[in-house]
């Protein structure tokens, strides 16, 4: 019962955050700026990214060698049922952009870790949680709302 209440409070919190903060990302999945980053997880966060959608899982990934830290946008939290830990190695393929002109960021299309590969978007950036290659994995949703 306690666990259920906690879950309910958590989901309610997510909803409030998503509605009140609205769209934060100004970037779309640009196929022209796709790159591959190999690095180690430094931090795991949940952030509202698109208007009227659930918060997204965002990780801070320190690139091997250069130690450049990227903000990697993974997927809505409800879609991602895997377990991440700080300090884990991760490879990301995604669309690169700079947040506010300075913070390197990635919209992830595919991630590889612990020998597994997880496809998050198709090659044009269409999100798999909207029914794509991972139809079996993602829950089917209706049409989304326009979000900047």
């Amino acid at each position, binding site marked *: 019962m306690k666990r259920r209440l906690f879950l309910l409070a958590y989901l309610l919190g997510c909803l409030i955050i998503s509605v009140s903060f609205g769209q934060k990302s100004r*970037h779309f999945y640009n196929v022209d700026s796709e790159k591959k980053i190999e690095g180690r997880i430094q931090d795991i966060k949940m952030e509202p*990214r*698109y208007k009227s959608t659930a918060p997204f899982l965002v990780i801070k990934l320190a690139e091997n060698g250069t130690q450049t830290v990227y903000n990697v946008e993974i997927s*809505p939290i409800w879609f991602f049922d895997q377990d991440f830990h700080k300090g884990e190695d991760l490879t990301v393929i995604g669309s690169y952009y700079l947040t506010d002109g300075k913070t390197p960021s990635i919209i992830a299309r595919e991630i590889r870790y612990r020998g597994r590969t997880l496809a998050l978007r198709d090659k044009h950036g269409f*999100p798999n949680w*909207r*029914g794509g290659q991972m139809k079996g994995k993602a829950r089917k949703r209706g049409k*989304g709302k*326009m*979000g900047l």
Partner: protein
Amino acid sequence: MKRQNYLLFFYIPLLGFMIIFFAFSSLNRSYIKGKVEKLVDEQLQATAGILKVNFSHLLKENYTPEHIFAQFSAEEDIYYMALLDENKQILGWRSQFEGYLPLSEESLKTERTWIIDSPAGKIFNSFSSFSLANSRVYYLYLGYSLAELEEMMLRSRKNFHLIFGIIVAVGIFFSVGLYRLQVHYLNKKREWEEEKREKQRYRDMSALTSGVAHEIKNPLNSLALLFELLSKKAPSGTEEDIASGKEQIRRISRIIDQFSSSLRPVELRKEKFLLEDIVSDVHASLAREATKKGVQIQCASYPDIVLLADKGLLRQVLHNLVKNALEASDGGTVFIRTGREKKRVSISVQDTGKGMTKGEKKRAFEPFFSGKKSGMGIGLYLVQKIVQAHEGQIHCVSEEGKGTTFIIEIPGG
């Protein structure tokens, strides 16, 4: 025509029809699809034109791209849109799918429309420019849902498959039916031709044997007269030999008579009579012979069956069957039963004699075939002829060592 040729004869036209239907439907669907896509293209370009006019007004009134997009957020068919400046730098964008804006450097090169496939279905893309009164140029990139068109095409495809499936199923059903009908007809035709040939052969044989019988009968009559005269003048002691000769002549005459009657076509002289009358007649005429052989005749007649048939011939049929049964029996009982079911009358003669072998049973009704040493093989043949002349049927059930039953069924009663 071989069996394979029949199949080809029926299936090739069906296959041809299906190919023509398939080709015609495919071309038709392709033509309609092309036309519809063209119409959609025109319609969407017109929509883009309206949007551009609205955008121009709003930009002129210094609305930010975010505010402008907000005006069109209720448009569910617009999956995504982006506003770009004259250097093709994105000023703002919106998408129904998080982060999805399939815009690349390649797609920004020229103003054009194109269709892309996505997991959300086909999307009509339009990239075109518009300018404000101050000559400032903007570009509008639109992604318009073609879900309804796709749904329509899908329904059309489904209907086509359904109709095609029905045509194939019905076609196969009718072809198989026609093929079977044709095979049945040809088999019947073959049987009929065989029967015709058999009848002709029988007619030829009848004519020949009738001629032979007639030719034998004349000298035989003379011979009978001679023996009659000889018996009056014969010296004593030879009477017995002459009587034996006369008996042999009578036997030959009887055989020729039977022969002739079996070859003649059966002519029915129909009259109304009680079936139990002929049963009683036959019983009475063969009672002495039965007693001599130690065989009991038992009759079980269904009462008051009135038949419209040839009484004399039916009596002959029953007489032949009961006589055969007595000859096959060594003691025991011969049963004569009559019955009626719906509009058919049945007469059965059952004995408890030696029965027939399978081969004998198969050939029982053939002319000149007999299981008895002294038989000519005409009795059962005649019986069958008479029954068939009455549009009836005769068949026998026999088991070796247990006896035989002949069952006659004739219409009427």
